[in-house]
């Protein structure tokens, strides 16, 4: 039986598009310091420190080791995971394994990215095989535009629904002081944005941001001693699929990584009504169709119902099932940090510390997801109570 693991400290930098006078190490230091302050601990209490991001974006090899004076990993145990977009959730899961294995009691996990120091799309384009298809795929948008069209055809979702999603996100991000794009957009504003690749226009795509998020994780005995409001990392699922066209789950027999992740997580935790038994979902939503489509894919709502929830306003901050009340990846996307930020924001909601963007519904359990690679999926279940 695994040792239980709780989030006992949360910290994040403000997020923005450009900060030329701040370097990546300083971002890490800022987030780590805030998480430690939140936990009421110092770096000397940390038994291990793990920092994860995607190496190519800033062009630094072994940057976990390079920046270990900033993260506090110097002289401490730790190593780096890198699974692409899911690296943030993976680093949180890595922290979970450090404690659940019984090897450590208190660890610091950090995710960061500084996209103003590199070009995102050229870096992402190298995910494809150099010998086979690197010349075809440009960045992430090709695949995501394709699945969006397929979703529209399949479910009856319209372009306007994606615009509604983005308008909602902007309302949420406006209330989140740490979000990057905090401007409020109306549905009409979103509809009028420049088309990038049909059906995704500029506002329906996530921005490129910079920022860092850190969390202090503790074992059960430690958490109960040092923390008044621990958030329990109740369960986590990682699902990866092979790379190629098929993983996008287009066609009649759809069974995507998100579906597998949802099915596995809900079965293991005896959750039959996800929209009742969990009260908020911080989703890795890199494009506007993600929220309705993946709410279905994670088996949180019924097939073809996602966009209807959007239409009814259920997914807003004040709605019956808020999704990404922080503004989500649609408003803040510093990739190595994006997924761990979902976990941190979900944990803040469970603690009731969401501030201006705290959802109105009482939160007992929350979902957080990570997305990356070739349609890879991480899904975490956070809870106010241990059982």
């Amino acid at each position, binding site marked *: *039986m*695994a*040792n239980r693991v709780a989030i006992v400290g949360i910290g994040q930098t403000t997020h923005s598009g450009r900060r030329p006078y701040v*370097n990546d190490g300083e971002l890490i230091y800022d987030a780590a310091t805030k998480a430690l302050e939140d936990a009421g601990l110092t770096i000397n209490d940390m038994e291990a420190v793990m920092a*994860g991001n*995607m*190496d*190519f*974006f800033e*062009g*630094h*090899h*072994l*940057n*976990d*080791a*390079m*920046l*270990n*004076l900033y993260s506090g*990993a*110097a*002289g*401490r*145990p*730790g*190593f*780096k*995971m*890198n*699974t*692409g977009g899911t690296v943030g959730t*993976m680093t949180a*899961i*890595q922290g979970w*394994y*450090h404690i*659940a*294995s*019984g*090897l450590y009691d208190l660890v610091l996990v950090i995710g960061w990215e500084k996209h103003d120091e590199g070009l995102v799309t050229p870096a*992402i384009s*190298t*995910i494809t*095989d*150099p*010998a086979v298809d690197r010349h075809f795929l440009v960045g992430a948008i090709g695949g995501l535009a394709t699945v969006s069209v397929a979703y529209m055809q399949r479910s009856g979702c319209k372009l306007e629904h994606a615009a509604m999603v983005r308008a909602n996100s902007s309302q949420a991000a406006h209330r989140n002081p740490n979000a990057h794009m905090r401007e409020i957009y109306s549905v009409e504003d979103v509809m009028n944005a420049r088309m990038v690749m049909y059906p995704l226009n500029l506002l329906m795509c996530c921005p490129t941001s910079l920022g860092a998020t850190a969390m202090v994780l503790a074992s059960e005995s430690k958490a109960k001693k040092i923390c008044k409001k621990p958030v329990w990392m109740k369960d986590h*699922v*990682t*699902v*990866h*699929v*092979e*790379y*190629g066209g098929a993983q996008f789950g287009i066609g009649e027999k759809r*069974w995507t*990584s998100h579906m597998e992740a949802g099915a596995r997580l809900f079965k293991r935790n005896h959750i039959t009504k996800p929209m009742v038994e969990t009260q908020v979902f911080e989703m890795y939503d890199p494009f506007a169709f993600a929220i309705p489509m993946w709410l279905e894919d994670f088996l949180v709502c019924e097939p073809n119902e996602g966009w209807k929830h959007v239409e009814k306003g259920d997914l807003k901050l004040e709605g019956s099932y808020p999704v990404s009340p922080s503004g989500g990846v649609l408003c803040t996307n510093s990739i190595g940090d994006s997924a761990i930020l979902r976990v941190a924001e979900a944990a803040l909601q469970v603690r009731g510390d969401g501030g201006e963007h705290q959802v109105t519904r009482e939160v007992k359990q929350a979902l957080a997801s990570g997305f*990356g*690679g*070739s349609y890879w999926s991480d899904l975490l279940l956070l809870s106010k109570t241990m059982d």
Partner: protein
Amino acid sequence: MAGRVGIVAASSTKFEAAKPYDHLMDLVVEVTDKVVEAAGINLKDDVEAVVSCSQDFWDGRTISSMPIPDAVCSHLKDESKVAGDGAYAVLYGAMHILSGDNKLILVVSHTEESITDGTMIENWSIDHIYHRWLGLDYTMGAAMQARRYMDKYKVTPEQFAKVVVKNKGNALKNKLAQEAMELTVDQVLKSKMLADPITALQKKPVSDGACAMILASEEVAKKLTPNPVWITGVGNYYEHHNLGDRDLAECDALIKSAKRAYKMAGIKNPAKDLDLVELSEYYAPQELLWSEGLGLCGRGEGGKLIDSGKTQLKGEIPVNPSGGLLSGVPINVAGMARVAEAVWQLQGKAGDHQIQGAKRAVAHGCDGLAGQMHCVLVLEKGGK
């Protein structure tokens, strides 16, 4: 440790200076097929999760694990990539088992150093504000380390050269090794000078290859094989990054890693309690320094240790009986290959370089400028 993690089987490609006709995934498929056969399991049904190990920069590909699920048939399974040395992947795999999340997992690492310019990648790992622009690479870092080591502890270039003679000589008996040769100290010292005192023969050659292993819980491991190898101690620490922030003649992170691992495994006198050591000497002087860090001799006595002959294949505590990294093993695969060699020794499957009656071994992985991160694993056979 809370429970025991068993290594059921390990596999490796032959290491070569270049494998131009093999895609990286060909290597992964090769070692996966081999290890699955050796463990007597079914890849699709029995493997619950995969921990892979590679580096984006070495593969020239962001998310270098992109093709892994395809190569290891892990459709809709848990696959996660360690971006560091292979020894860490074994450690992370062990954590999967210890947490109770998985009962049987595949750990796999790959790198083809020949497809890229390693010097450039090493330079990209150095802090981008102060030191990268000096053009530093690992060879220069190792040279400064060796110089400081020589200065503080009076270790000599001849003693460094003896490491090369021993390791490349041991490699003559290892079928997987890339560079095996009979050498003299003089030949090593007279090979091309790279960065004083490191000569060409004192540097790990460019190498291509892959390595894999199957890890299982105690119960499952015992069912699968009569001779599982147990991971009984682990420890890993980072050094500071800036060379000026550490004394290069010391290796604090390794000392701490070893202490932690030995405490878990109940090892009090490593030189006596261990039957062999497989360590990561990217450069010859590092074998002496790491031997000190692992407690095989006292501080500053690495030179005397190689002189004594104790670390020879037939010595009291053989170090790198396989030939070590100097015989040619790719970076990232390096640490996992050390674990694999130790596993074969403990299973009695090492072949011509078998240490008779080996019961307890240490495998060590490291990476970074002048060995910035260290991971130590204690491996044992038998026991309750």
